[in-house]
């Protein structure tokens, strides 16, 4: 059996959805002028920028959302299945800093850092998708959103979890994706990317979030609502109250999105968190934050929508035991929750800092979590007696044919990042100079990046992507292509 963790029972799920539907009717949700006409045409009352969504309309919109869809890799193969109990992971997104591999201190991220992270994630099978992971400080802000995506498309063939922080950015990013896919229609048929769209808590669809929902729906490119209730600050302090707010934000977003294009793919996602009452920080690594993610995803599953969460990151500043504990625990919990896409790996310091070394450590936690949800299965008619019939009480299982045939299915083999069977103090082979976790992780980063080869891209499309970047980059004041110039030279 597949192990599962559920935090809510059915009566509670029903109450959550019922209260969420009440909330979007009264007090309603703030919406941008951009979508007022769309909503009024559908019979939604909008007064002073606040939309009051009728329950029947909300339920109809929810019923029309596809239960599943795929993201495709560059070669057109379905690579990420959103829906059901499938669990995938991608690195965290859009942070400003990177933990420098040499100094182990945070510093502003550059395009070259994002390139290395994309190369690394390309080499790690634990990551089904890439993310536009870092804000590149050597790229002008106006070009930042699409430039991140450009680098990912240039260096990766995996699907991408991305997002636009403005209306013009979204247009540029959809143009880029269409160039890479061979046209807008090809992109609609086989979307390569999903776009995070964030309502502002509580219940506010800002201009660019509203525009993104509509723009994505019409382009047929999947949207991923990332609702971020901050329990105790911008959302009710109770976990259950924040889950209701999350549901209300998601449902109101689904209505706007489905009105723009019925049946367009959309994800019930989020980055909920608790507000720490001692420090006022948004704790991304706390157990309550993981509980919120699981509960929110459970509501989405109950409604039949694909799901997303934000886990596998840490509030800690360094790659230490706290980072391992928070990230490892939440990777396991997210997998047990059956969340379709779990973003966040590699991140430290309340999602302010990325780390290549942490990404490879997190990959180990993800691999373990995936082993866990693969569960315990019978592999033969008898569970143990047939093997005992061969060995008797000799205890000699290593020689058995079954052992050789089955051990790969039973055991996951971590990389050398995990210290298992290394030098040991107990037999005298260990020493204080043995590489620590950071050193082992750094070695693996170097090995994987060195082994990376850029996936082939049709030369015409590559030329089109680069031409786009040069043209649009020039408008934003870029006279070279950071992270790429060297490759071209």
């Amino acid at each position, binding site marked *: 059996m597949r192990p599962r963790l559920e935090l809510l029972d059915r009566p509670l799920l029903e109450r959550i959805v019922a209260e969420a539907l009440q909330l979007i009717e009264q007090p309603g949700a703030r919406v941008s002028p951009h979508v007022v006409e769309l909503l009024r045409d559908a019979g939604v009352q909008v007064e002073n920028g606040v939309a009051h969504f009728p329950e029947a309309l909300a339920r109809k919109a929810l019923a029309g959302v596809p239960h599943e869809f795929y993201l495709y890799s560059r070669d057109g193969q379905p690579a990420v299945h959103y829906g059901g109990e499938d669990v995938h992971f991608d690195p965290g997104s*859009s*942070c*400003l800093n990177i933990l420098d591999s040499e100094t182990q201190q*945070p510093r502003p991220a550059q395009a070259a850092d994002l390139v290395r992270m994309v190369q690394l994630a390309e080499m790690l099978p634990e990551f089904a998708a890439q993310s536009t992971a870092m*804000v590149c400080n050597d790229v002008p*802000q106006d070009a*930042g959103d699409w430039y991140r995506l450009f680098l990912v498309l240039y260096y990766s063939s995996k699907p991408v979890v991305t997002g636009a*922080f403005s209306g013009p950015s979204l247009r540029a990013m959809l143009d880029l994706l269409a160039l890479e896919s061979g046209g807008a229609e090809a992109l609609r048929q086989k979307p390569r990317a999903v776009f995070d769209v964030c309502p*502002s808590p509580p219940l*506010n669809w*800002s201009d660019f979030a509203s525009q993104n929902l509509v723009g994505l729906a019409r382009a047929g490119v999947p949207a991923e609502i990332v609702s971020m209730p*901050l329990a*105790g*600050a*911008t959302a009710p302090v109770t976990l259950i109250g924040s889950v209701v707010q999350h549901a209300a934000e998601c449902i109101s977003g689904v209505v706007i999105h489905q009105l723009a294009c019925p049946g367009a793919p959309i994800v019930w996602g989020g980055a909920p968190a608790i*507000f720490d*009452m*001692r*420090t*006022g*920080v*948004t704790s991304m690594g706390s157990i309550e934050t993981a509980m919120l993610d699981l509960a929110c995803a459970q509501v989405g599953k109950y409604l039949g929508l694909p799901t997303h969460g934000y886990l596998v990151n840490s509030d800690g500043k360094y790659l230490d035991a706290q980072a391992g504990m928070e990230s490892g625990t939440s990777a396991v919990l997210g997998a047990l929750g059956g969340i379709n896409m779990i973003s966040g790996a590699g991140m430290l310091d*309340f999602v*302010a800092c990325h780390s290549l070394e942490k990404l490879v450590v997190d990959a180990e936690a993800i691999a373990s979590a995936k082993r866990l949800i693969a569960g315990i299965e019978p592999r033969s008619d008898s569970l143990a007696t047939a093997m005992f019939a061969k060995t008797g009480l000799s205890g000699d299982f290593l020689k058995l044919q079954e052992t050789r045939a089955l051990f790969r299915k039973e055991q996951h083999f971590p990389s050398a990042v995990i210290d298992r069977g290394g030098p040991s103090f107990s037999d005298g082979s260990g020493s204080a100079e043995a590489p620590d976790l950071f050193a082992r992780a750094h070695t693996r980063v170097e090995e994987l990046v060195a082994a990376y080869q850029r996936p082939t891209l049709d030369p015409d499309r590559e030329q089109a992507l680069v031409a786009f970047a040069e043209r649009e980059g020039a408008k934003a004041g870029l006279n070279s292509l950071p992270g790429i110039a060297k490759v071209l030279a």
Partner: protein
Amino acid sequence: MSDATFAAMRQSIIDGAPETAAELAQQSLLAGLLPLDSVNLGYVPGMHCVGEEFAQRRMFLPDMMASAEAMRAAMSVLDPELRRLGTERPRAGVVVLGTVKGDIHEIGKCLVGTLLTAHGFEVYDLGVDVSGEKFAAAIRERNADLIGMSSLLTTTMKQQRTIVEVLEKEGLRSRVKIMVGGAPVTRQWAQEIGADGYGKDAATSVALAHSLMEDASRLASMENR
């Protein structure tokens, strides 16, 4: 009699009890206590105690918010009388606050505003999505000593630098001290963009604002010499 009243005032702030705080303020006026004494010997020591308890992690943010609300309730009773007597509580400073352009997250900035107000600052909150030009206009209009810029998003944090540049261009930079804060903001970032101070949370912003005011007045007295 008045010692017990001051102790009760102090306690009403620690308890975060606005009704009690306001009622004690009313009673003190009827009893003929000087309002400035009530402020300085009753309520303000309450806020100091709350700050200390918070620093020791024995009180939490919701407690602190309630204390600030109690302080506001007491001052709303005492302020008219203070004005009438011409013994207004000395202002700790004039602060203009806002969440930077492109960002609409205001919880952190509002916390800072509440706490600074409770600690005697005159606070003008410009709200969210505030441009450098709006900050500049408010600095002129309010004759501000300090500004506080907040941003929650890594992507909007860069606006803080832009706003500093606008203030430089408008010739206002030397007139104000600049505080920055928000989830992605660091001390290093504050230095990099030429801000004067960084508060890691709302509680530390109070001490930061006080120390920036001291820096400013020390500078002013040196210039006057």
